[in-house]
């Protein structure tokens, strides 16, 4: 023991404070890197401000569109003395009959005014005779001014005689037909993505990072979903989703051994293989190898079946709808595997131990829906997903995943 200590001491005494001239260009590169970082930070601040403005703008436009549409609703402040109520009905934008009721044509008004012998009651009755159907047409010239918010609404028409002429007004009322307003939705989507898990320099645990910010970690997700449109703007969604987290390292090094024991940032892989991971022939027959090793590719794959519960809120209700969505996904670990690839040979290394069987994630994002034909629409949903519970039992690995879902939806 003493001998070993002496041996170590030689190296410690001579090498702990060992100094060597650093190349001059290193400082230049550090300086350049810091300048780049500064401009990147400035750019990132600008992007954040721009994104905040964009978000604010989309909320403001959503609010404006929602309120301006409600402002277009007919308002009725004065109910004159002589009022005749009709049966309630639904407003349609296309003319359904010759007789336009909103408002009563001017010539008819003139006729009413000129014919002073006819009592108001008689005039009212004659017009009422025309208004027997349960649907009320909007005159063509007014159609462009009627937003789709009022179209299809259930209204109570009211005939008003205010001394100058006869007016027909509509008052929105509760639908007495008890017809459900909600719609169902079926959809499917696919999303490639990227996962990140950033660590501070002082936090390095020494484990191979499953998701270091500098390495590429792909995520593939697919989702089959059904939804229920509760009203014009709000819908809830569920279904079945599959998400696969992949970690791949091209710099993997392996040597002649049949016992594979490796810690990664999500768990440990310990496998006894039936043969050596890399054969001695490979080692000696390959140029570019270093000592007793070869460079290959190491892959870790974790597949989750997930049950989503999401809500969507339409912020812009146009041909291209813009929605905000968010919710939670409960997942079950369906597959857990790893392998080493060298040349064309793939060696299965088995599962990573210590991985939780279940996952719990939250997801939020924006989505754009564009109608294709009939009830079919195409959607694009950039989303951010975050693992609320760490993936493995012995680590703090909770990746943030960026996905862009693309898919088709069918409403009925």
């Amino acid at each position, binding site marked *: 023991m003493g001998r070993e200590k002496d041996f170590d001491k030689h190296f410690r005494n001579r090498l702990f404070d060992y100094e060597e001239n650093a190349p001059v260009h290193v400082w230049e590169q550090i300086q350049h890197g810091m300048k780049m*970082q500064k401009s990147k930070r400035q750019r990132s601040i600008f992007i954040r401000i721009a994104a905040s403005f964009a978000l604010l703008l989309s909320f403001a436009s959503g609010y404006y569109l929602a309120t301006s549409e409600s402002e277009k609703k007919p308002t009725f402040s004065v109910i004159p003395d002589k009022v005749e109520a009709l049966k309630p009905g639904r407003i349609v934008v296309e003319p359904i009959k010759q007789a336009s009721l909103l408002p009563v044509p001017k010539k008819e008004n003139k006729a009413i005014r000129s014919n002073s012998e006819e009592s108001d009651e008689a005039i009212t009755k004659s017009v009422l005779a025309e208004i027997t159907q349960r649907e009320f047409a909007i005159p063509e010239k007014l159609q462009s001014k009627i937003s789709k918010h009022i179209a299809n609404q259930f209204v109570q028409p009211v005939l008003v005689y205010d001394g100058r002429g006869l007016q027909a007004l509509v008052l929105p009322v509760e639908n007495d037909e008890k017809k459900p307003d909600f719609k169902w939705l079926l959809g499917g989507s696919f999303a490639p993505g990227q996962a990140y898990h950033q660590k501070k320099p002082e936090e390095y645990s020494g484990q191979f*990072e499953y998701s270091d910010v500098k390495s590429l970690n792909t995520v593939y997700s697919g989702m089959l979903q059904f939804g229920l449109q509760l009203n014009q703007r709000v819908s809830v969604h569920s279904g079945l989703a599959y998400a696969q987290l992949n970690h791949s390292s091209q710099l993997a090094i392996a040597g002649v051994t049949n016992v594979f024991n490796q810690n990664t940032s999500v768990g440990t892989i310990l496998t006894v293989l039936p043969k050596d991971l890399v054969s001695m022939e490979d080692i000696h027959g390959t140029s570019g190898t270093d000592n007793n090793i070869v460079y290959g590719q190491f892959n870790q794959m974790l597949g989750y079946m997930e049950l989503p519960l999401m809500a969507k809120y339409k912020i812009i209700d146009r041909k291209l709808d813009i929605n905000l969505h968010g919710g939670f996904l409960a997942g079950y670990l369906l597959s857990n595997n790893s392998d080493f690839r060298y040349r064309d040979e793939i060696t299965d290394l088995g599962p990573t131990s210590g991985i939780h069987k279940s996952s719990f994630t939250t997801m939020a994002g924006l989505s754009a829906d564009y109608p294709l034909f009939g009830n079919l629409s195409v959607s694009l949903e950039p989303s951010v997903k975050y693992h609320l519970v760490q993936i493995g039992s012995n680590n703090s690995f909770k990746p943030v995943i960026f996905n862009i879902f693309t898919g088709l939806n069918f409403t009925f």
Partner: protein
Amino acid sequence: MEIPQHILSACKKGDAKSQKLLYDLLARKMFGVCMRFTRDYSEAEDVLQEGFFKVFQNLKYFDNKGSFEGWVRKIMVNTSLEKFRKQNFLYPVSDISEYDEVDNISDALSGMTEKELLQMVQALPPQYKTVFNLYAIEGYNHQEIAKLLGISEGTSKSNLSRARGLLQQMVKKYMSWQNMKEIG
């Protein structure tokens, strides 16, 4: 080495001249650390550059409680380890048999220059080199090394013992080469 407080404060504010001064004060020593953990000059250069970049990025987190040089050294070691992890993913434990003890090793080591000692350490296989550097030179214990490298304490101990064995073999070769030189 004590770094004056006003230099650190100016560096935290992003003053380029003070940053250059700080770099000049520490670069030689830190390059020595990087050389020990890496295979060659160019790899050490990369680590030094990345390490100092991290130092300036994270300077605001330095709380002035401990030695600044020690804090920078720790970042250099961590950066070297990160490089080691990236390049030596899945490095298996090789089956190297125990080596014989070499006599007069202490005398031989005393007769070697720092450069020669460094070259021997650099020539070790990556994992042995890392464990030897951390334990024998940096003063970490096996528990800390195991945590840092994601290996068991037993593996750390066996790596250290094999590193010592390999170094002894190298010293032996050096001694016989010296003898041959003297005879020749």
